[in-house]
């Protein structure tokens, strides 16, 4: 009796749990692998990194593609159809996406680490093919949606950024091995910077903002974020992205700086919207995952402020290194691990009543100690590595890398425990069904 209410049925919207969980499990594994590769690379290589193939670039892509984007893919295919109430596409396409993307990321990162061109080409191609399936699935879903402009505009911007960054990424990979790029584009570093802007603030950043408007109110039981806020942040952050990426690729520092300043304005609007939701929340005591959200929200504007320095002519070492670190490990890794920490037990609880029994309690599924250790390690790693990038010194960097690795292992323990508790709950449910 109400417009738009005849939509798909519930069973069509919920994927089998193995589909999103394979993405989350891979994200957790790549997270550990990234820190391990950084530890193996050593503090000197990490501290002065401003681009170029090698183990640090491999670790960077293990985090960006392996952890951040992998989580985004898994969360999007599960949550997007539930949020938009429109079908996503066939489950086989989600599985195909994973089997193209996950091996692609592994081969690409290995190719960067050992500097083998064919591995870079193969890994890059598989990764882009996996992302192409993602773009097809999500675009097909978003095309049917007209009633969630706040969220969908960010998702469209994310897809547009993904297409551009994938094209630039492939060009960069080919440039490593053939050097053809210098002839018609400004330079490799400029294209790499635009690729990083599109990846960090474009694809991942836009998805993070769009999903924030759905997930944060739901997790804290806060009021819905008005669509006007989402429309405004999509407009302002989209403009910032165009200026930032355009300034980077054209080598126009003032243009990139203007993008960073407008990006700060978008962040202000976004955080005000989030603050309004938090103010009305019914869960007065925020759950442990929210510590990482606070940290991410502090790191997002910090990364934009740090971006101003290299854009306005400060030396790339340490300023570009610091900017990249705050963007990837400060803002995005904090936010994504926060979401993973909340969503893994939440989805497990959601699926745990599939056999008709009592759902597993969130509080039982999510062990506390591993996430406390992860948070402490993650925070310490951020502080130590940022200090080492700015102030030099080998020991804080070395310590920061080891602490980061310890945190990622602890997060892995958390993920294993969630899945084990979910499986034991399901086994008990099966046994109870047999008895009944």
């Amino acid at each position, binding site marked *: 009796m109400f417009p738009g209410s005849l939509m798909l049925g519930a069973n069509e919207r919920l994927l089998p749990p193995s589909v999103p969980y394979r993405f989350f499990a891979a994200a957790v594994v790549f997270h550990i692998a990234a820190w391990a590769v950084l530890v193996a690379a050593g503090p000197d290589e990490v501290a002065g990194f401003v681009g170029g193939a090698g183990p640090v670039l491999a670790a960077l892509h293990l985090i960006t593609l392996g952890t951040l984007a992998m989580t985004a893919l898994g969360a999007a295919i599960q949550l997007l159809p539930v949020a938009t109430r429109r079908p996503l596409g066939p489950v086989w396409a989600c599985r195909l996406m994973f089997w193209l993307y996950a091996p692609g990321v592994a081969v690409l990162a290995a190719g960067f680490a050992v500097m083998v061109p064919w591995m870079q080409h193969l890994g890059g191609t598989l990764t882009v093919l996996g992302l192409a399936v993602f773009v097809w699935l999500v675009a097909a879903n978003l095309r049917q949606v007209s009633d969630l402009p706040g969220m969908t505009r960010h998702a469209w911007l994310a897809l547009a950024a993904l297409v551009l960054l994938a094209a630039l990424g492939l060009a960069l990979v080919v440039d490593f091995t053939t050097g053809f790029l210098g002839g018609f584009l400004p330079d490799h570093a400029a294209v790499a910077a635009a690729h990083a802007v599109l990846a960090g603030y474009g694809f991942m950043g836009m998805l993070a903002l769009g999903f924030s408007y759905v997930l944060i*109110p739901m997790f804290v039981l806060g009021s819905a974020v008005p669509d006007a806020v989402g429309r405004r942040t999509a407009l302002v952050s989209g403009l910032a992205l165009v200026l930032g990426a355009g300034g980077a690729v054209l080598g126009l520092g003032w243009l990139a700086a203007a993008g960073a300043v407008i990006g700060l304005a978008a962040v202000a609007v976004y955080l005000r919207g989030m603050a309004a939701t938090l103010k009305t929340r019914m869960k007065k005591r925020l759950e442990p995952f929210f510590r990482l959200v606070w940290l991410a929200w502090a790191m997002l504007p910090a990364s934009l402020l740090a971006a101003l320095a290299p854009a306005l002519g400060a030396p790339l070492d340490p300023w570009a290194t610091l900017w990249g670190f705050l963007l990837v490990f400060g803002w995005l890794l904090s936010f994504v691990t926060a979401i993973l920490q909340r969503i893994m037990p939440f989805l497990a609880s959601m699926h745990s009543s599939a056999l008709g029994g009592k759902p597993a309690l969130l509080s039982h599924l999510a062990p506390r100690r591993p996430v406390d250790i992860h948070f402490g390690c993650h925070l310490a790693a951020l502080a130590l590595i940022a200090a080492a990038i700015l102030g030099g010194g080998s020991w804080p960097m070395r310590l920061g890398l080891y602490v980061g690795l310890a945190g990622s292992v602890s997060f892995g323990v958390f993920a294993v425990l969630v899945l084990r508790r979910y499986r034991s709950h399901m086994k008990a449910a099966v046994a109870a069904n047999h008895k009944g």
Partner: protein
Amino acid sequence: MPSNHCDTSEGGGPPEWLTLALEVPPLDVRPILADGTDPYATVMASADGVILGGSLVIDAPFNPSPLRRVMAGRGFSSYGRKLAEGHWRVFFHLDGGTDWESGAEVEVLPEGAMIWREEDGIHIDVRKLPPPDPLRAIIRLIESLKGAETVVVHHEREPHFLAPELAERGWRIARMASEVVNVRLWLERES
């Protein structure tokens, strides 16, 4: 029960305009719903033909709270009555929509969800609320209940995110029934 607005018109009797509305033959949307078709377009087409001061009467299988909200936005006051199990009659009057909850026997939660009592428990209608307001309204209601009352939720889709939150609070979805635009869930306290 929490409430930011409690309808009082029941005590004061039906609205004056009801006399005029009683003359209007009802549009029965129950057969349309039974065919699996959304009657929204039919209702809106009928509403388009109503002039200022005129009325429209709808027979529905449930209290169509979201429709009443939509019609209020178009300037219609409404007055509803449950005539029998599965049969509600709602009178709409085009007067600017100043009195749209009249006679609905409902309370309105801060999120805009409507609650009312029937023999089988407390009903809450969360249809057409933006997420996560349906979840918030349901949680707000069950947290306010002391006894072992059943809560009947009227939703427009299966709320996947509800079960984990209910379980944390010692509640469960006892059963569920899906009709066109009305997914009903019976919530009970864990025994």
